[in-house]
């Protein structure tokens, strides 16, 4: 049986009237756990951002895209001087593909908290490169004061600041692209030129040579030059007679294969980064005036070169 001392431990039903103090429901709760070592201000707090947008500052956006009519949507969260946080949305549409499209956007004064940029039609990484920075003055003026984002984006993978990367356009993987080339006139060679604003890495080049009735042993080679000087020549290693139609593939990492049926030939090509102005051409021996190259198709990895 419990003693009076055991029954009198604590308050409640087992308390002894007149011995234990009466329960007071208005008494303040006393927290007995350990208090945190760090405390925080909840009033007069400084803004959590180091970028302040002044009245003369503007958002300078440059977009290079291979996607026609691509629209890049920006959302900026800005804390106004009165402490109100607003989200401003801006859309920029590309007018010309594979050329820099520049935009200068007025902004609300305040602290810039965050920025995101998202594409609308871009599917592959490497198709649309976006750069956004804070600028003072005219669009072509030199007063860049803060670079926010510079990277490729897609409709699914946006760019963001803070926390995003600032990269060069040639960093990272390029966008895969399959190009249908020019079908030359009869008796002429194939010639494909790298456009001014891109950098290519050739993955594979294919064409068909249909020889005329004129008797001759044609031999095709694949040549890459820088616009003036030849940097690579790969012979097919095959001689094509008259009145035949053969396909040729020059592929990265290929080995020489001459099909026994004589209709498909495969040869390696050199792993070369093609700068603007570089040319990919056929170099034929004994090509006759009525011989015809056709079905020119090649696959490249493409980057913005601007």
């Amino acid at each position: 049986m419990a003693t009076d001392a055991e029954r009198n431990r604590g308050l409640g039903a087992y308390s002894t009237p007149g011995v234990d103090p009466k329960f007071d429901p208005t008494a303040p709760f006393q927290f007995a756990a350990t208090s945190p070592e760090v405390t925080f201000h909840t009033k007069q707090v400084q803004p959590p951002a180091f970028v302040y947008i002044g009245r003369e500052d503007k958002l300078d956006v440059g977009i290079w895209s291979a996607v026609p009519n691509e629209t890049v949507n920006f959302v900026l969260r800005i804390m106004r001087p009165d402490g109100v946080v607003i989200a401003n949305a801006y859309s920029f549409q590309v007018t010309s593909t594979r050329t820099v499209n520049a935009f200068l956007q007025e902004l609300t004064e305040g602290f810039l908290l965050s920025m995101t940029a998202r594409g609308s039609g871009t599917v592959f990484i490497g198709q649309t490169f976006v750069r956004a920075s804070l600028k003072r003055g005219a669009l072509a003026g030199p007063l860049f004061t803060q670079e926010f984002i510079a990277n490729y984006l897609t409709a699914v993978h946006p760019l963001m600041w803070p926390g995003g990367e600032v990269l060069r356009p040639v960093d990272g993987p390029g966008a895969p692209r399959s190009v249908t080339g020019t079908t030359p006139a009869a008796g002429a060679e194939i010639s494909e030129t790298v456009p001014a604003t891109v950098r290519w890495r050739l993955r594979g080049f294919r064409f068909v040579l249909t020889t005329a009735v004129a008797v001759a042993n044609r031999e095709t080679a694949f040549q890459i030059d820088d616009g003036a000087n030849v940097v690579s020549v790969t012979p097919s290693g095959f001689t094509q007679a008259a009145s035949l139609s053969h396909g040729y593939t020059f592929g990265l990492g290929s080995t020489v294969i001459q099909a026994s049926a004589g209709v498909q030939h495969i040869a390696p090509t050199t792993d070369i980064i093609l700068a603007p102005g570089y040319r990919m051409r056929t170099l034929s021996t004994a090509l006759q005036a009525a011989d015809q190259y056709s079905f020119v198709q090649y696959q490249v990895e493409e980057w913005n070169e601007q």
Partner: protein
Amino acid sequence: MAKWRCNSCGGTYFDVQRDGGAYFHACGAIPNQAYQPNPTLPNHDPRTHIEVDNPRDERPIPGLIYLDGKPHKQVPHFEERGTMLAPCDFAIMAEGKGRTQIE
């Protein structure tokens, strides 16, 4: 997606690729019909290939920047150090003999 024939070299091409990207034709070389490798002959011509006469190059001129949908080029600023954007007409590297639409 129109198909064109270059009036300079006779090549045919589509100006828009299947992925929607633009294609810029540039004339290539043609076999030299007057090729003569023998240096002792008076009509000696060692060139196996020659460029076409008045070639066409549809690549845009370098340095174009589109501002508000209009082409501009960076030019020296007329008052301050640095550059400014000046409007310009869209131009390609070489018109050549033009092109003809065939489809």
